[in-house]
């Protein structure tokens, strides 16, 4: 880990009636880092995201972002503090054009139509949607919708961005493009926390990986270390590894 923590989650707990979705999880993300969060379905990854962005409130624990406790702030204030996010199920605002979707984000820092328009143009060019700017967002393809999600978050001019499975359903070429986009933005100092199932992507983008299982953190480290950790293999890849072993026998 490099530098002082940018985002720090300390003993975060989220209980739903009778179920502990996130169980005393602590981790930190440094400025300029790309950290991946992996784990089987239902491990609590998206819940963890929702706790960081304020879509859900903490049952216990604290979250510190850039030296400020943000655990009790409503989601729109956390967006103002510099946390952008995408949703696992891409939610384009379908009555708006692609550009207007991005402008909704850009209006966070300006009330001027012209300024927001320009910001949207820049961001759309960044994610490669400039030719689709005036199309109703409902007409975008899955891959375009995913990029629009990223674009709307980028328009907030965030300090940190949380990507929730932005690669799901994309083909290899599209995945490569998004990886390049993440690396380019990271090169400019943007910090990332990424939920990802595609392990190639995890290896490609992240220096550090956090593994959740049944709401608890079971491992943390470099991609190579974590992915060879027997506990992780058991929890996350267990079945398939067993099956493979069985086949070899």
């Amino acid at each position, binding site marked *: 880990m490099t530098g002082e923590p940018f985002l720090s989650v300390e003993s975060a707990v989220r209980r739903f009636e009778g179920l502990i979705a996130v169980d005393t999880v602590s981790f930190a993300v440094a400025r300029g880092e790309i950290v991946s969060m992996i784990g089987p379905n239902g491990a609590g990854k998206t819940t963890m995201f929702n706790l960081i962005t304020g879509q859900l409130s903490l049952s216990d624990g604290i979250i510190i972002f850039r030296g400020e406790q943000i655990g009790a702030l409503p989601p729109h204030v956390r967006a103002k503090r510099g946390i952008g996010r995408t*949703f696992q199920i891409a939610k384009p605002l379908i*009555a708006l*054009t692609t550009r*207007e979707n991005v402008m909704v984000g850009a209006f966070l820092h300006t*009330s001027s*139509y012209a300024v927001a328009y320009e910001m949207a143009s820049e961001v759309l060019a960044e994610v490669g949607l400039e030719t689709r700017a*005036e199309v109703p967002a409902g007409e975008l393809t899955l891959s375009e919708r995913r990029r629009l999600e990223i674009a709307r978050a980028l328009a907030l001019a965030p300090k940190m961005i949380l990507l929730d499975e932005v690669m799901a359903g994309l083909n290899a070429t599209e995945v490569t493009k998004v990886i390049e986009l993440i690396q380019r933005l990271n090169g400019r100092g943007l910090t990332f926390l990424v939920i990802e199932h595609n392990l190639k992507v995890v290896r490609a983008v992240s220096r550090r990986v956090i593994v959740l299982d049944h709401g608890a953190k079971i491992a943390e480290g470099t991609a190579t270390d974590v992915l060879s950790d027997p506990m992780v293999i058991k929890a996350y890849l267990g079945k398939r590894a067993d099956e493979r072993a069985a086949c070899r026998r």
Partner: protein
Amino acid sequence: MTAITQTLTNGQRAGSGPKPLAEMLLQYAGWLLLSLLPLVLVWNKPYWVNIVAYSYLFAGLAAAWNIIGGFGGQFSLGHGVFFAIGAYAVARLYLDLGLTPWLAIYPAAGLASMVAVLISWPTFRLRGPFFAIATMAINEACFAVANYADRLTGGPRGILIPFRASVANMIFIERWKYAVLTFGFMSLVVLLTVVLRRSRLGHYLLALREDEDTARAAGIDVLKVKLIGMAISAALTGAGGGIFAMYVRVIDPPTLFALPDIGVKFALISLIGGIGTIMGPVVGALLIVPVENFLRGTLGGMVPGGHLIVLGIVLLCAALFLKRGLVGAFTAVLRRYWHGKAP
């Protein structure tokens, strides 16, 4: 042609650079001028001039409703309350203080706006149909209060504004002057909607209508934006109520709070014209108000309430087949035509 289709629905244009606001306002001013056509056609028939004047007034009122109901997606059926507050306030200020209605409209709008915020604070926690039902209930509660608050509203007898024709009194002998007045009101609300649609507030209202979680993640204070939208919508509705009071000059609770004639009608006009579109309320009102009057005249004599049955069927069909109203359907056809022809 694409410019027309796109500006009709969302005021955007293909091509580079944002379209100047002045250009958009001019474009809609053109559409508004076109809506003067019905008035010109019936110029020397006072009965129809009257109906056209009503149509413009209700176009303006529906456009005001459309700000929170259409763009904001908060399906209020309680706008009759703000309408009534505007009507009573203008009548009282005019009769008791001798204030000219031209000025009385402002405090009336302000009062409607304040009441709207107070009412909406708790009800905005409700979503979808529950919000609609709650606002309808508030409308009925205020109906009862207006009946009892004798000293303010004249109770069930209502308030009678004596006929003293003068420009200062906003009372005219010629019907066409009312039509010009209500046309002015409608134009003001529509042009305001154009400005709003382009503004940050307009984008935020549309965003929260589409998805509140996404809106919050984009830094939008959802409750605050809803309240601001409601305050603007209610203020304009109150102003329309004030004009209505000076127009009919007899206002009583059944006239101001009747759901099918006021609260629901704003929504109905927008729905048929095109909910969340800028010109939808104008198109809807110019269609519904004359048709309703015609049906009331022809069917009402034969089958009591017959016109309501026909209107109900029209509304059902609009809800089933015209999701974005007449304006939405029209722009969809134009778009298809254009895309079909373009290589």
